[in-house]
């Protein structure tokens, strides 16, 4: 590994503790995330290499490692996002239907007032007709 004699492993481990998984999230999604975090930590360490201090062979090997890790990070990120997106997608009809119900309930409340207003308006018309007839 090109980085082995160029960095001090552990001395610059910068990754802050990632928050724990919330309850209700599929374990497979969390496993994918953990794998991605490990690879991201690996690339973070690869960034601690001073390119100028590498000979040509080590530099090429280091570049190849960065490329491979980057491809793997992208793949794992996409798998994680896809899994979460699928979980979210399954719930969306419920969110939409619940929001519609709330809107309907607000409409019903407004409608009740409209009915009383209509009664009041009808009484006003009646009193005018009676006055006219009288």
């Amino acid at each position, binding site marked *: 590994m090109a980085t082995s004699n160029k960095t001090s492993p552990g001395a*610059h481990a*910068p*990754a*802050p503790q*990632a*928050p724990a*998984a*919330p309850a*209700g999230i599929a374990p497979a*999604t969390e496993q994918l*995330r953990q794998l*991605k975090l490990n690879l991201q930590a690996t*690339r*973070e*360490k690869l*960034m*601690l*290499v*001073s390119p*100028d201090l590498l000979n*040509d062979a080590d*530099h090429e090997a280091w*570049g190849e490692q*960065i*490329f491979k890790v*980057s*491809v793997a990070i*992208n793949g794992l*990120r*996409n798998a994680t*996002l*896809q899994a*979460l*997106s699928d*979980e*979210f997608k399954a*719930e*969306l009809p*419920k*969110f*939409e239907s*619940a*929001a*519609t*119900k*709330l*809107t309907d*309930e*607000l409409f019903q*409340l407004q409608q009740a*007032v409209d009915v*009383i*207003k209509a009664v*009041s308006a009808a*009484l*006003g018309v*009646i*009193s005018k007709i*009676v006055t006219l007839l*009288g």
Partner: protein
Amino acid sequence: MKFRSLALTLALLVLQGCATVAVERAKDLSSAAIKYSEATAAVIDVAIDAAIDADSEAQVRSAPRPPLTEVKQRERAKALEQLDAGLAKTVSLYTVLKHSVNTTKAYFIALQDLADGSQADATGDAVKSVGERVNSVNKALQGADATPKLSDAKIAALGGLAKQVAAQIHGAKVAKALERDAPIIGRALVLQQSVLRLAGDDIRNNLNEANNRFFVDRVRTPYQRGEMGPGWANDRRAYLKVRALGQTETALNSAEAAAGQMQIVWERILSGSSSAKEITAMLKDTEDLLDAVNTLKDADKSK
């Protein structure tokens, strides 16, 4: 008859109190959850840039030394295509998640509209208007000298009572909605929290990688070579602070603060406990209802 009135009054008092607490809770929850959704969407935007930037900067850093053969150049073109395809998919998936987050925001906006949508004032005014029209019809039928069916005091009292009853009905609807939607709300919060975590990972990773490159170029290499310029101490301090604090991204911090506030409100709703503010609101409404009932009684007596 007196007992029935008292029972009715007490029942109204209890319902009124609970209903108002539900309205306050729904207002708290919806406003916190809307902020949470907005913060999550903002973090997604930052995460998209962070994922692309971290990848690009790693490629810049590891650029091969020239000269490059034609074969090598073709290989690199393919490699770039592979990285681009992965990142394009990342952008697309984050965008889909942002849309999903906005759908949950739409739910909380609807909840906020319902919580803010009390028709109590409008109902009170409408009932008062009916009372006045009843007198007007009576006058039209019996002549200008006819005694009004309803006194002004009674019309006002009826309006006041109608207002309180409408407020109670509104609160009951909100309470029912909160109870009915509890699992949906809980699920929405968990999913958004997961989106925030994944996005946060990418933002942190980009920061850490940038900080490591900064350390190598501005702190370690000058130190190794004994070439520390006047800015070296500042650079070292900047690196150490980022390394120690881990995350400095404003959007991420604001999202996490919103998440904390919203979760507190949600836990309170689930546990059924009441805050001092809620209790005060409950007592105030109870007093208002009592006043309305008493005013109606007084109006009846004076007739």
